């Protein structure tokens, strides 16, 4: 048979592509549930690390099923808010049907455009509220979860992650425990610009909302700084009000957000 004729070439390549596509489609379909379960458990690990439910190492040593259970046991409620700070949806927290807003990229774009957003707030039984942040690092996206104490002002914990920052430099935001521990006890000045500062020599100023940038990872630090401020700004309405009331009396975050919903 002439393997170099036009007809043969066209038929052959078509056949190869169809077969390959079929194989890939089949495996993708087969593996999708377990991939999604992995991704969800990863997000939950990061959120619970920020909320201080368990030490990060223990969370990463735990199996996916244990993580789901741990989350269901510790979560109080979860809902989404808009840029005006008003509640616009609830997220299920029951063990079999945990809902998350883990597509942060479109949310980030919507925040910047001032459009419709559903920003998640996860309130744990310890009173700590966890909110996500998202932005652009040096090579790819950086994101993270910030745990805010019940006073809605001080940071209880933080966890940062990235897609492809330089190992040993930008990747320190995830790899080095000391970096995320620096955020514990710092404050977020809601409504101020900037609400938080991640800059070179920022700690020397003595401000309570400042953390030093990572030496040698200028662009990653800059991206993280922007991510923090954009998202803190977006959450500022709700948390600013909550922090204000909290300073007056013992009013919790969920009470504030429920009251704004009723108005």
């Amino acid at each position, binding site marked *: 048979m002439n393997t170099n004729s036009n007809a043969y070439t066209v038929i052959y390549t078509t056949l190869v592509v169809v077969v390959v596509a079929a194989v890939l489609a089949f495996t993708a379909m087969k593996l999708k549930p377990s991939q999604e379960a992995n991704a969800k458990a990863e997000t939950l690990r990061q959120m619970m690390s920020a909320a201080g439910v368990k030490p990060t190492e223990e969370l990463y040593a735990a199996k996916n099923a244990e993580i789901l259970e741990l989350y269901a046991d510790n979560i109080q409620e979860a809902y989404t808010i808009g840029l005006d700070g008003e509640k616009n949806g609830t997220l299920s927290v029951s063990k079999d049907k945990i809902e998350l807003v883990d597509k942060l990229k479109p949310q980030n774009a919507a925040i910047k455009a001032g459009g419709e957003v559903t920003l998640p707030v996860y309130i744990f039984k310890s009173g700590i509220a966890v909110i996500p942040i998202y932005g652009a690092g040096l090579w790819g996206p950086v994101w993270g979860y910030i745990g805010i104490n019940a006073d809605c002002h001080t940071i209880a914990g933080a966890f940062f992650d990235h897609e492809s920052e330089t190992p040993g430099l930008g990747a320190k935001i995830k790899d080095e425990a000391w970096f995320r521990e620096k955020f514990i006890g710092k404050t977020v000045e809601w409504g101020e610009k900037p609400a938080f500062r991640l800059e070179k020599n920022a700690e020397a100023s003595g401000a309570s909302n400042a953390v030093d940038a990572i030496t*040698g990872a200028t662009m990653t630090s800059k991206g993280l700084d922007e991510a923090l401020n954009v998202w803190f700004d977006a959450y500022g309405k709700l948390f600013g009000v909550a922090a204000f009331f909290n300073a007056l009396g013992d009013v919790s975050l969920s009470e504030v957000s429920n009251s704004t919903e009723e108005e």
Partner: protein
Amino acid sequence: MNKIFEKGGKFYWLHSTVDAFETFLHVPGTVTTKGSHVRDAIDLKRILILVVIAAVPAALFGMWNVGYQHGLAVGDPRLNILGNWWYGFLRVLPLYLVSYIVGLGIEFACSQIRGEEVSEGYLVSGFFIPLIVPVDIPLWMLAVAVAFAVIFGKEVFGGTGMNIVNPAILTRAFLFFSYPNYMSGSSCWIHYKPTEQLVDGFTGATPLALDGASAQYGTGFWDLFIGTVPGSVGETSVIAILLGAIVLIWTGIASWKIMCAGILGALFVGGLGDLAGISTIPCYMQLLYGGFAFGIVFMATDPVTSAQTEAGKWIYGFLIGALCIVVRLFNPGYAEGMMLAILLCNVFAPLIDHCVISAHLSRKAKKLKTA
């Protein structure tokens, strides 16, 4: 040379080591017997010794400054000039010992292996290395860095005269990238013991990294010119370095073209920075800050790693000065850019020479055609 070290002798394998010491101590008795040759009293050893002599003022001042800065930091400026100098001398001496023992050890070993004469190139590098590192650098780090620089910067290329980058600068670069916490920031430039009480408002940052904050030392023009500021051991005093520059230029060892071009390059970019409002200091002050003066006088003019053609020297020097200020102004991560600028231009020097020569040849060819 003793018979047993000559070819066929018992200790022939040691001949390069013995030869090195013998020619270091005596003028060699061998003379050229045929063919044309240059009659000059100068040889590699004499050149190297002159470079070391030129760097002596900077080294002496650096030692004094170590003591002086320590006195300022603990609020105890009681020591006189000699006392300060002695204090600094005792701090810098271990750096010299490590630099020479490790560097020369490797140099001798490599020459033995290759069966060549030991070359004296390391005498100069070894003298410079302690001058361009912070005084408090742990000695084992310095030893590792020297070993790395001598092996990978020099010996793998074939020893003295064959290296692409300056071994002293490579030592510093190795330390800078390997142990950034010990090479930048505010805790490494001034020697003090953890138990000592420091003055109020103490900062260990160099003027370049200070960013306008107040410090226990002055940062005016004369402070920088004389060099009474913290920094790498030998880099702070512009006046001591100028003395060295005069010696080097007067004896014709270092190229004045590279020095001039470097200063022009720095002024050019610094001036642009001033005009554009990026820079916070007038451009001429850039020449006094950090390692610029030491780098352009002693490091950039290294005849092995710099450009060889006359026009090339102007381009090479200009690039070093310009790049240094570019790093200082535009890279928020690094306060100092001199080391990086020199390393980069070391690598580009052969290319610069190549371009200069081929441009020259094509001009000649054109002339020939028209004639």
